[in-house]
């Protein structure tokens, strides 16, 4: 009896292991070169750190799907931003993402929460193998859960807004003294103040404006990338909202995991100048 039970258990376990390993073979997305899937940016889309890129966030190729999760923290003089995100990438074609941002005003006990749903569609190209850049279009729909501060600083809409963007990204193999180089250019139509944390539109402007965002980097090995980013931002509220920039270094030990450390220069936020600080992001691929 006991032996029979043990055998049944063994068989069941064997079947389970086989099923999981078969699933792994069908689903384990590793169809891109390491480091060419990019990172996850601060609003949950595949990108650099603050800029959404044309890359689809997982390591899926056109026959695969993948899913990933990200946690990011940006800590500047007077504010702290935490972001939790998850994304699903389908056939290196479509990226669905969700993210929750928590923006903390240090010492004031104020916490502003924003949820973001993202959608990206690859229109053209392969970031590594085509002559021309990979081009994608996307949107980020943002729902501000705590709109009191946005209302107080004069946002026309303190509940929700949607950004639309088109992005072009290219990796050039061996381009700089044999090292791989990557660049990205994004145009974003937006009404968001400080990404939406301070609402959408304001007394100075309440229309969509097109902002330019750019990234450039060098891969010093298959596992280490350094670069910088720039993100133009509107000043709808008349509070001197500044463009953002960062210098980043990414460590990509495997296709399953990457870690990015950056120095973020966020300028004036809500009238408080000189918001510089550390950006740390961990990104894992679940399958």
């Amino acid at each position, binding site marked *: 009896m006991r032996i029979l039970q043990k055998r049944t258990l063994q068989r069941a376990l064997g079947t389970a292991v086989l099923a999981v390993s078969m699933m792994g073979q069908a689903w384990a997305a590793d169809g891109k*070169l*390491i480091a060419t899937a990019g990172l996850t940016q601060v609003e949950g889309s595949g990108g650099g750190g603050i800029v959404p890129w044309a890359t689809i966030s997982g390591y899926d*190729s056109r026959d695969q799907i993948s899913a990933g999760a990200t946690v990011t923290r940006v800590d500047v003089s007077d504010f702290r931003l935490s972001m939790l995100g998850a994304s699903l990438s389908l056939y290196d074609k479509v990226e669905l993402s969700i993210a929750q941002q928590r923006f903390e005003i240090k010492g004031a006990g104020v916490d502003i929460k924003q949820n973001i749903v993202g959608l990206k569609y690859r229109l053209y190209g392969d970031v590594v*193998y085509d002559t021309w850049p990979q081009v994608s279009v996307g949107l980020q729909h943002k729902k501000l859960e705590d709109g009191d501060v946005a209302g107080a600083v004069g946002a026309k809409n303190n509940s929700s807004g949607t950004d639309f963007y088109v992005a072009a990204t290219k990796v050039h*193999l*061996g381009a700089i003294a*044999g*090292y*791989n180089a990557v660049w990205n250019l994004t145009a974003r139509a937006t009404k968001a103040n400080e990404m939406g944390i301070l609402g959408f539109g304001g007394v100075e402007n309440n229309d969509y404006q097109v902002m330019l965002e750019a990234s450039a980097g060098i891969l010093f090995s298959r596992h280490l990338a350094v670069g910088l980013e720039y993100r133009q931002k509107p000043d709808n509220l008349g509070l001197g909202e500044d463009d953002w920039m960062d210098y980043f270094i990414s460590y990509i030990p495997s296709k399953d995991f990457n870690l990015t450390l950056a120095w973020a220069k966020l300028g004036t936020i809500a009238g408080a100048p000189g918001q510089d600080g550390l950006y740390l992001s961990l990104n894992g691929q679940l399958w």
Partner: protein
Amino acid sequence: MALLAGCASTDKSLYDELGGQATVAKIVDNFIHEIEYDQVMFAYFAESDIDRFRSKLNEHLCFLADGPCAYTGDTMAQVHAGMNISEGDFNHGVDLFIAAMDKANVPHPLQNRLLAKMVPTRQDIIYL
């Protein structure tokens, strides 16, 4: 004209920088070794003549790296016709080729330059 010729003679080809025939042969041997131990890739090679593959890949890499060789094998499209190689499997093959270069101690920048020379062949390899 003389100036151009002068330039060409002082610039080492990628093939020479790699270390010539010795290194290329090492990369190819390592690549074959990687394939032999890889389920996905080995399936594509089950009916291949490995000796011919070895000699033609040596030639092809030499040719692509601007070495003193002519490529005498079939075109990439002919070789891969009917295999229906997926993008994912192709990229997996590139991962193995990178491993082969790593094991031949090819420096990272030279690896990238060789890969860049190989990239244009991709369209004649996948989904045929």
